[in-house]
Each structure stands twice: as C-alpha cells, then as structure tokens.
C-alpha cells in the first residue's frame, strides 16, 4: 500500500467514524424524552403580533373563532360545533361548544358569542354581511338573521374572534387580550416581544408547549441570522423569509425550510374604460407579450406558481377547469397591436396610432413594493413590452397617493395583490363594478353588467356548486375580455430548526401552536 493510499484510507476511516459518532449523538438526542426538554420556543416575525385588536388571532392562537378555515381554506368547526342555514339563506343557527371558558374565567356561551359577534360588526361593519339581529335560542345556540342572504357568512366567521366582554372598553377598544385559545398572554413589550404561556384549562387538551416568545425582528437579514445562530427556533408568518434568503437556509442542515401556497395572488390590472386599454386587442397583446414563468423564475427565485385564472388554485373547486389565458407569443402580440391600429411608422421601435406613440406608465403602490418584488416584475414586463413596441414607464408612488390616483382613474396599468378570504368575495371584490367589500384592492377599472349580475348572484347563492358555475362564467368573461392578467400565486416561506416538531404551515398563516413541541435542546 502506497503512502497516498494509506492517507486516503485513514481519512475515509476518520470520516466514517465521525459520521457514526454524529449519528449516535443525534440518536441520543432524539431518544431523550420530550418531557425533559424545556417546552419553550422563540419565533421570529416580521411584524408586531399585537395590533389594535389584541394579540393576532392567527399568529398567536390567543383568540379562537366559531369557524376555522383548514389548510384547504374549507370551513371547519371551531368554537361552533355545527350550524344550519334556513331555506331562504338568511338565518344561520349556530350550536356552540360547551365547557369552554375565557382566560379570565368568563364562560363561553350564547351570550358571550352574541356579544363578540356584535362587537365584530360594530368595529368592522359589513364583515359578516348585513346582519339584522342575533338571537339567543338557548345557552349554547344562537341565531344570526341577515336581511339578505350572505353565502360567504360561514367563512367570514373566521375573521370574527370570540373575546371576553371584560376585554373591551366602552369605546369598543381592546384593553386586554382575553380569548379562549390554547395560549394566553403573559407579557407584551411593544414592537419587541410577546410572551405566551399555555392555557392549563384549554378545552382542547393541554398544549405541549409551555411558553412561546414571539419576537418582532424588522430586518429580514437579522431574522435569518438569528435563526442560524439558534437564537430563535422558527420564522413564521407570511413574508417572514424573502425568496433570496431561502437558499442560505436550505444549505444549513440544522434548518428545515417549508413552503405553502398562500392565499395571495398577483395580477396586472388595467383601466379598461379609457385608451389605450379600452380596446381588448391591446390588453390581449400585453398578455401575449409577457411570460409569467420567467417572472416566477427571476423575480421570485422560483417561489411562486403561475396562474391561469383569477381564482387561486387554493380554491380548486372554484377554479375554471380550462386554461383561460394565453401568454408568451410575441408575434401574436404584434399582430394584435397592428389590428388595433398600432404601427411603428417612424422606425424608432415604438408603435404609434394617429401620430401618438404607445406610451404607458405602470404605477406601483409603495407599500406593496416593500412586500413583494413588484419593481423587478415591472422591469421584466417593461422589457417584454418594449419588444412589441410599447414604451412603459414605472412609477412607484406612496400608497395613500396610489389609492387616490386609482379612485381618480389616473392609473392606466398596475400590479395588484388579491387576498381571497373566500372564493365568492375574492371574485366579487375584484370584478364587481362597485368594488364590493374591498375598497382597498378593487380599482373602479371595469364595468361589465353581466359580471356584476353574476358576482351578486354568487354572493347570495348558498349552494356551492351552483355558485361555482356562476363564477366560472365570470372567469370566462374576464379571460375573454382580458379584464386583468393573472401572473402568479406566491409561495409562503417559513423555516424551523430541526429540534422543533409538529409545525404545519397554513395558507392564512394560522399557527398550529398546540401541535408544536421541542425534541432536543439546541
């Protein structure tokens, strides 16, 4: 055996031994009974988990709702055990869970449930539809009576938390976070940390974790480094990890990177009422000019998924089964522009019509640019449009100004996120001419009487399959008219250290704290 071979075999031997030892250590750690490991975790967030309405219900689970939405965004019993809706779709009878107490000892019953729902309708009018009155049937049954049918009612209950009457002052302000959830608030330092301890009297059984500390770390890079250094155990929440940071964490064997399709999806919006986008051919030309695949690849580093209808795949049953939109065919795009009367007469690469060049500005809201790579996306679209002879400018404006410009009709083209809390309202909020419930998102961009009729009918139609057919037709009209261009749905990225078990991501970033536990010390 030559010296070289000896050295190689020695090195291989050492490597083999050390891997065995490493295996032993790991195994020992795993075998350690969970009871001996302190059941405490520290999670990093990019926002303060306490707002004006108390501890964030989805991030902290301090509060619970009558109805929860599962990982497929389907309604499941929460503090309500079952429910029925009347024939006319106006009266909902809700049966409540018995034996549940708020953290302050107040019993949860028909009276407190009514109180919470009434508070929710006062602070968020319209959230639960047009409620006429709430009646107490018995200790654990309430009746919610609407003045007209509101089909997404069950889902909207997910956004109304059950809160102890002692937690609210006469101005409807939350003075203390008193809910019924598996964890209760122990300490809160504004914009720093929120400490939760388990609720020993939780109706759903004793949670495994004894204490949770949620740390607000505003800087994304610091969050990543805190996780790498083991100072925090997990990064949760939407936007917690930026796509560009994911590869660093993936390379770290002590960290597991998780992704899930969220409820937020993004599209190009047009002002379809004024030139140049009042002509369907120009809108169609834009959709042929762009390539959503490359947006996902380059702007999102792959952390997104191309969409082909305005309904996100999360609501599978509500998504039109056909691929409605067509993309990436620059020749077709040029042909359509020509048909619409646009041609490059002076040879400068920009098409003209009636002596005017095709110049358009894409306005982006400052607040959204900070949360999604809208600028990069806009730049890619800009270069795509340049290839078919359209000169596009990009203008990032303050969010307040953006909304004002939208209302005034000063925005011709933009990028918009849609967060669909329910398929019915997501579609109505986006395409109904009056903007539906979401003033924040829907621009008064399009007005199509048939779409108005269909979305209104869907809101009242309590039968899902019938409502789905109504919304299919809306999707067909939207695609045929190219009222918007769906770009992608985003992949939410979270990460946990390898000694944390049981965390499941949820599209509406609900954290399943009661299932999470620690298997070994860091």
């Amino acid at each position, binding site marked *: 055996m030559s010296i070289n071979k000896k050295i190689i075999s020695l090195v291989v031997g050492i490597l083999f031994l050390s891997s065995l030892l490493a295996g032993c250590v790991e195994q020992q750690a795993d075998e350690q009974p969970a009871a001996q490991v302190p059941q405490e975790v520290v999670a990093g967030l990019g926002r303060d988990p306490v707002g004006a309405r108390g501890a964030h219900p989805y991030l902290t689970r301090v509060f619970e709702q009558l109805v929860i939405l599962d990982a497929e965004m389907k309604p499941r019993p929460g503090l309500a055990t079952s429910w029925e809706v009347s024939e006319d779709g106006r009266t909902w009878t809700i049966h409540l869970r018995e034996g549940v107490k708020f953290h302050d000892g107040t019993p949860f019953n028909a009276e407190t449930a009514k109180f919470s729902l009434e508070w929710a309708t006062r602070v968020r009018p319209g959230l639960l539809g047009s409620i006429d009155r709430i009646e107490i049937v018995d200790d654990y049954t309430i009746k919610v009576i609407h003045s007209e049918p509101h089909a997404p009612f069950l889902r909207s209950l997910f956004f109304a938390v059950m809160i102890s009457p002692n937690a609210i002052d006469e101005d409807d302000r939350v003075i203390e976070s008193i809910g019924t959830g598996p964890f209760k608030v122990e300490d809160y330092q504004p*914009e720093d940390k929120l400490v939760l301890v388990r609720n020993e009297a939780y109706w759903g059984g004793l949670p495994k974790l004894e204490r949770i500390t949620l740390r607000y770390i505003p800087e994304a890079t610091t969050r990543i480094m805190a996780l790498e250094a083991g*100072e925090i155990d997990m990064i949760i929440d939407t936007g917690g990890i930026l796509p560009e940071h994911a590869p660093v964490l993936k390379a770290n064997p002590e960290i597991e990177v998780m992704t899930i399709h969220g409820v937020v999806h993004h599209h190009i919006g047009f002002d379809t009422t004024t030139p140049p986008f009042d002509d369907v051919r120009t809108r169609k030309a834009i959709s042929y000019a762009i390539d959503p695949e490359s947006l996902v690849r380059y702007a999102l580093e792959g952390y997104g998924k191309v969409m082909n209808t305005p309904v996100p795949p999360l609501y599978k049953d509500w998504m039109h089964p056909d691929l409605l939109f067509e993309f990436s065919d620059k020749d077709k795009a040029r042909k359509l522009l020509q048909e619409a009367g646009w041609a490059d007469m002076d040879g400068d690469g920009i098409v003209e019509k009636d002596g005017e060049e095709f110049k358009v500005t894409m306005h982006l809201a400052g607040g959204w640019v900070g949360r999604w790579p809208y600028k990069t996306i806009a730049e890619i679209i800009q270069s795509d449009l340049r290839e078919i002879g359209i000169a596009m400018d990009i203008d990032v404006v303050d969010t307040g100004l953006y909304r*004002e410009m939208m209302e005034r009709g000063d925005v011709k083209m933009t990028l918009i996120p849609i967060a669909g809390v329910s398929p019915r309202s997501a579609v109505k909020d986006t395409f109904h001419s009056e903007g539906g419930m979401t003033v924040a998102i829907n621009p008064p961009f399009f007005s199509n009487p048939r779409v108005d009729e269909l979305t209104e009918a869907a809101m009242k139609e309590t039968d899902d399959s019938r409502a789905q057919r109504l919304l299919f037709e809306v999707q067909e009209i939207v695609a045929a008219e190219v009222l918007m261009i769906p770009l992608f749905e985003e992949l939410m990225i979270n990460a946990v250290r390898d000694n944390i078990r049981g965390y499941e991501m949820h599209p509406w970033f609900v954290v399943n704290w009661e299932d999470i536990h620690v298997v070994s010390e860091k």
Partner: protein
Amino acid sequence: MLTYVLRRLGLMVFIMLGVSVITFSMMHLVPGDPAEVIAMERYGEEITAETIEHVRRELGLDQPIYVQYSRWLSNVLHGDLGYSHRTDRPVLDEILTRLPATIQLALAGMLVSLIIAIPVGTISATRQYSAADNISMFGALLGVSMPNFWLGLLLIMFFSVHLGWLPVFGRGSIEHLILPAVTLGTGMAAITTRLIRSSILEVLGQDYIRTARAKGLKEKVVIYKHTLKNAMIPVVTIVGLQFASLLEGAVIVEVIFAWPGIGRLLVDSIFARDFMLIQGCILFIAAMFVLVNLLVDISYAYLDPKIRYEVK
C-alpha cells in the same frame, strides 16, 4: 445664569409651538385619506366605505383643520398626546416605554465613540504626519464611509453566527448592548476623532502652549493639562449634538438589531401613517433636541470661564 436658562426655556415654548404647527400641517398636506389608512390599519384590508366614514367621525377627521389643530393642542397642553391608531395605546405611553432603550443605546454608543476618539485623536494630533496619524486618519475615513447597516450585519455574522459570542438581536443583558453600541459608536468615533485631532492641532499652535513649553513643562503636562481641556469646547458642541440626534433614535441600528427604541417607533409610525404617534414623536424629539442643546450651552460655562462671564 438662572435668567439665561429661564430665557432659553421660555424660547423653547415658541420653538415647540412652531414645531407643532409645522408637523400638524404637514400631516394633513400629504396625499391620501387618513381615515381610510386608519380604518385599514385597524380593521384589515377588507373594509367598507361605511367603516371609513365611521372612523372619520370617531376621530373628528371630518372637522375643519384648524378645529382639529386647536383640539389637539389643547389636549397636548393637558398632557394628552392622543392615541396611536395602530396600537390603540396612548402616544405618551408608547414613547415613554421606548425611552429607556433609546437612552441606553445612545449613552453606550457615545461611550464607545469617546473611548475610541479621545486617545486616537490625541495621538494623531501630537504625532502629526506619523505612521500612527496616517493609520488613524485612514481608519476614521473608513469609519465615516462604512454604512451602519453593513457594519451591523457584518458584526452579527462574525460575532453571533460564526463565533456565537454575542446575541444577534434584541434588548436585555449587557451582551445585547455590545454590538449595537459598537456599530453606532464606530461611525460617530470617526467624526469625533477627526474633530479632536484638528481641535488639538489648533490649540497646539497657540501662544500659551509655546509659553508652557518654554517654561520647561513636561510634554505630558502640556498635552493633558493645557491642550486637551481647551481643545474640548468644539468637541463638546458636536458630541452634544450627536447625542441629541441619537435620542431621536438611531433608526438603522435599531432596525437591524431589533432594538425597541424611539427611532423605530417613528419610522414604523410613518410607514403606518399613524398620525397621532408621528406628531407625538416629533414633538418629543424636538423637545429633547432643544433641551440637550441647552445643556451643551450650560456645560460650556464650566469648560470655559470666559463664556461664563459673558453669560452673566
């Protein structure tokens, strides 16, 4: 001296009044509907026009601007800075809970910068154009040019992630203070070093220093007793101003190290358009600034008897 201080305090009232008018009108000149912003902040993005009107009435935003201002001012004079729209907590509480963190970081940053700046500045001035001088001036240039966020992240990467010696973020023990204070202090030290150097050089050229040397005093005594004290007056002004600006919060350092200070409070409230909180913060910061300036002026009197005489 007392009348001087009282006069300055009286002037402060007018300055604060001016600041309040300017901030208040600026808040109302920026585009966007405050009622809508607040409603969204409170109730999420799924809000109706009804909710917005409800919020507008509740906060009195439907009143003419001068009514809003006089109401706000009278509340402020009664010690009520209003409520933060974002957290629904009193603005004064929000500011006061962050004040200790801000003062702690400001003092620690100051300390780091002085520990570096005084010896380095003195050495480079007394050995002008030597290798030590060149190195320290190059260091100062580096310190000034290095952006805080870059240095901060680099320090975290090295000392926290790789070596595991110091915590990455947050406020708590003394260890938590080291990295933010060093990050903050380094940039400041660079400016102060150069200032101390030039100030000492100027004093060294004075006649009384020549006299001191001619008397046969030891160089040590000349430097420590005669030069340093006289060179400190411009330094105190700048350091005082630096400290005052630190009390506004070292925004970048606070964001990087998740330090719960006033700077972050202000920036977050600007992003969230938390009008009451922005007004409160600016008023508070202005008051701090004026106050620290006053303290700096008073401290001159102790450093330089000539100024004390003039004040009288």
